[in-house]
């Protein structure tokens, strides 16, 4: 599924350079980190050490290369599967584990399910579960940036299924009308839980949906980090020079289950999975590095070891952090607790100590 073969292209992608060669080892390292985090988290979930997990396997190249093309000042509006983006933005592993556990160190204060993290310091807006709602936020933030003459782009992430959502429609339409500096990055991983891409919508590609809004659409092979980087760089410069929004469809595959609650064997074939697994994006970049002599199998083993140690250390720290304070339930509903929330806080207090019968 090369760029040319993948479907209609409504905007040209410059044949320009791919990822900066000097960055390739770092990029590979980040992709591998995402992969190993994923594996670790799936097993932590099975062990009951975290409650839930959404894997990204198969989407590492699309995410890491995309984030590589952004500047730290750009605003990211993620869905729930964007570990690769988070890692490139620099969100520390401990921050992630604190969130997965929902402990006292969690900047979200234990409020959300795993994977729904966000960090203002990294301009990575806190995710929610309803699909698509973040799309129009990215457009609103871009409208605000336009008014502040702030030379940034906003970028939002979503899946193939999410093109059916209300806010895909409102977001693309507002972006077209207000010509906002927004990148719509659709990871078409071929499935929305059990719904295959071709039953989600009858359009030729997802990128072609941009036509309905006067927004250029681009299809890229999301297993090819270079192609993704190129498409995002180009969309970004167009946006910054007043050229408006771009819809990018990165064609990838969800190699794992939708989430730890899902069993993909119920709806897709081993053959299909095997076919895509042969195109594993992590293996592909590794191959490139090996072929160009920048990496050996031994290096790779060592790197894996190093990353696993890093992950283990972060996990250990997160698991030794205290539980979140029960009475924080009542904070952040508003900037200041109302009298009613104060009263409810007092109502809960006697039940909030461990062993009081109110507690888990």
């Amino acid at each position: 599924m090369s760029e040319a073969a993948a479907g209609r292209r409504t905007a040209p992608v410059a044949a320009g350079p791919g990822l900066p060669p000097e960055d390739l080892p770092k990029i590979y390292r980040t992709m591998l980190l995402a992969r190993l985090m994923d594996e670790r988290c799936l097993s932590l979930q099975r062990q009951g050490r975290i409650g839930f997990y959404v894997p990204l396997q198969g989407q590492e190249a699309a995410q890491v290369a995309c984030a590589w093309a952004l500047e730290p000042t750009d605003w990211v509006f993620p869905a729930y599967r964007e570990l690769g983006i988070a890692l490139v933005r620099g969100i520390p592993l401990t921050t992630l584990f604190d969130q997965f556990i929902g402990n006292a160190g969690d900047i979200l204060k234990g409020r959300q399910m795993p994977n729904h993290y966000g960090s203002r310091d990294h301009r990575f807006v806190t995710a929610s579960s309803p699909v698509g709602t973040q799309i129009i936020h990215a457009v609103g933030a871009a409208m605000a940036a336009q008014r502040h003459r702030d030379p940034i782009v906003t970028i939002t992430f979503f899946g193939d299924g999410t093109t059916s959502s209300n806010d895909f429609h409102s977001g693309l339409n507002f972006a077209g009308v207000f010509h906002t500096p927004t990148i719509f990055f659709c990871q078409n991983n071929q499935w929305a839980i059990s719904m295959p891409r071709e039953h989600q919508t009858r359009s030729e590609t997802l990128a072609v949906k941009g036509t309905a809004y006067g927004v250029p659409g681009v299809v890229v092979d999301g297993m090819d980090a270079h192609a993704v980087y190129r498409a995002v760089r180009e969309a970004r410069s167009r946006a910054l020079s007043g050229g408006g929004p771009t819809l990018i469809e990165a064609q990838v595959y969800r190699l794992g289950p939708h989430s730890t609650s899902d069993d993909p064997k119920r709806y897709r074939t081993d053959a299909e999975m095997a076919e895509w697994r042969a195109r594993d994006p992590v293996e592909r970049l590794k191959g490139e590095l090996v072929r160009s002599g920048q990496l050996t199998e031994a290096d790779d083993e060592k790197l894996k070891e190093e990353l696993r140690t890093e992950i283990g250390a972060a996990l250990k720290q997160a698991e030794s952090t205290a539980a979140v304070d029960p009475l924080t339930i009542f904070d952040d509903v508003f900037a200041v607790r109302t009298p009613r929330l104060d009263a409810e806080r007092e109502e809960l207090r006697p039940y909030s100590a461990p062993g009081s019968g109110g507690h888990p």
Partner: protein
Amino acid sequence: MTEITLVQAVNQALAEAMRADPDVLVLGEDVGVNGGVFRATEGLFKEFGADRVVDTPLSETGIVGAAIGMALYGLKPVAEIQFVDFIYPAFDQIVSELAKFRYRSGGQYPCPVVLRSPYGGGIKGGLYHSQSPEAYFAHTSGLKVVVPSNPADAKGLLTTAIFDPDPVIFLEPKRIYRSVTGEVPAGEHRVPLGVAATVRPGTDVSVFAYGAMIPTVLEAAASLEGEGVRTEVIDLRSLVPLDEEAILASVRKTGRAVIVHEAPRFVGFGAEIAAILAEKALYSLKAPVKRITGFDTPFPYALENLYLPSPARVAGAIRDTAKEG
């Protein structure tokens, strides 16, 4: 009769209604090939095919809107909303269209759609897989709202809902989808809407609850037996229409009322029960009416067991109410 789970009872009601009436049809996200993320529609795709078990694109406004169109035509669609937290994209279709079609057309266009959806906390779902939005729907004139608490009621109420001429929001307590089992009458089984059930008779305090709170309340009531508090527990089952008579009769007897639900308290469904009592049973009330509910915050992930009414919190309220006045 063998014991089955609540979600199996839902499945049975669907299968039997579909066998009985070719115009009954199921639609929603992942309800077909996958059998629903909670397996409520398991096996239906195989038995009835893609024509009657319709996997839809990811759009709740589309699901509910299409179901309305089908109902206008004459079908009896049963749409699944994967989690009730995801029903809001369809809110316009529900409030502006589903609830008002019969009325605005002067009775020309009934709209007998059932929207079934898992609701409530207790499965570590956080803000967006735990909500209890019954108050929104109960406040919307033109909708019926039903919440079963056990397998037999789940089958009986859902069957009634499917063949009811009006739209029904059918909220399934996912926390007890599998943990509560019970005997369910084989074959057609209907439980009327608008009739509460006294699931535990008592004389000292009346507790009004529904759905997943019933086991919690029963546990609290049992724990107070030793203290000599005889608690009456009323399972409302259908919030609209509401069995006001059962509520008033119980409070006229006990003079004391505790209301329990998971949803936030402020303008929650419990407020209506308290208001009915303040309006129609004031002179019977010997103690203030207490509401034990979720708090007026979004639903928290790590602390959900503190947020949700626990047997201890419910027992505390019953005990206080029994003593008061």
